[in-house]
């Protein structure tokens, strides 16, 4: 014989065990269970089944390496980006901790390069504008091959230049298309009157 009350509450028994009913429905089900042994027995069966299931799952869970699971999940998480200064500080800290040798060697090399490059650059920079020249060209010595029948004529100009003519020994003071040299020439012309056998001399 069917019990209409049990038929009514039967669909609510499983949600009752799972805690899915509202307070009013829960109260109505509990009143029904107090007066209906079949439903009460069925609820007890549900709870026993849940307990068995939970126990079985817990036993399975004990066999799983949850540490690896946690590490795997954490490794896939994108960490929050740190501020630039903090990242630099962290990077330097790690370099000093784990790469101290190469870091110090690099710093020593860089310091050595700077120690050499700066004086060289200063020296070159200071030397370039003035060069290695005096105020004017100063001819110091002129010599002629002993076999050559020529003689040098040195002329230093007012502008600071110098000219060295090579004229024939018997050509007087003339050169190719030239004009006669004057002893009192303002250009500073100077002739090396050397003996034929001695064609070297300091000016």
């Amino acid at each position: 014989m069917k019990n209409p009350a049990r038929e009514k509450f039967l669909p609510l028994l499983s949600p009752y065990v799972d805690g899915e009913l509202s307070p009013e429905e829960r109260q109505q089900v509990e009143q029904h269970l107090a007066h209906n042994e079949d439903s009460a027995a069925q609820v007890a069966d549900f709870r026993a089944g849940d307990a068995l299931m939970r126990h079985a799952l817990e036993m399975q869970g004990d066999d799983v390496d949850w540490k690896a699971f946690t590490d795997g999940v954490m490794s896939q998480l994108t960490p929050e980006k740190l501020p630039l200064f903090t990242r630099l500080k962290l990077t330097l800290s790690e370099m000093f901790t784990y790469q101290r040798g190469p870091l110090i060697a690099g710093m020593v090399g860089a310091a050595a390069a700077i120690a050499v490059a700066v004086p060289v650059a200063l020296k070159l920079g200071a030397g370039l504008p003035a060069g290695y020249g005096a105020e004017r060209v100063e001819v110091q010595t002129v010599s002629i091959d002993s076999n050559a029948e020529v003689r040098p004529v040195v002329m230093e100009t007012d502008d600071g230049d110098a000219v060295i003519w090579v004229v024939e020994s018997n050509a007087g003071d003339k050169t190719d298309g030239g004009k006669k040299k004057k002893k009192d020439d303002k250009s500073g012309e100077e002739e090396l009157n050397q003996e034929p056998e001695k064609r070297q001399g300091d000016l």
Partner: protein
Amino acid sequence: MTQTARALAVAAAALLALPALADDTKVPVQADVVYASTAPGKVEASLLPMQATLAGRVKYTTLKSLSTKRLELGTNKPAQVALPNQKVAEVALESLKDDVATVRVKLPPAETTYKLGRGKSLYLQGGAHDGGELWLVLSMPK
């Protein structure tokens, strides 16, 4: 040898070697070979100062630059400049004193030593060529 020690050795070697290289002073000299003639012709604009300088003795009416060479003179490292008349000029740094270079120029049949002048030139007659004369002009590069 550890990596650190190797790096330190390289740095020390560089520290010792670079000053030695830096002391190898180079004196730059510009060598121009110029063709000059009293025959009617053209005087290049850049050679007008040369024409004026030589005019006290010869009035050249043709001046033509044939070659320009920048020489880096070091001690015991003579540089050569070939002239079209088969002559070869040999230019060498004789000494460097008080930041003034003394240069020796051997252009047969003459051999000259002179002190460089800032912005000044030394004109050396280089012999006959093609109806005129060749000049070797030595100056400091600008």
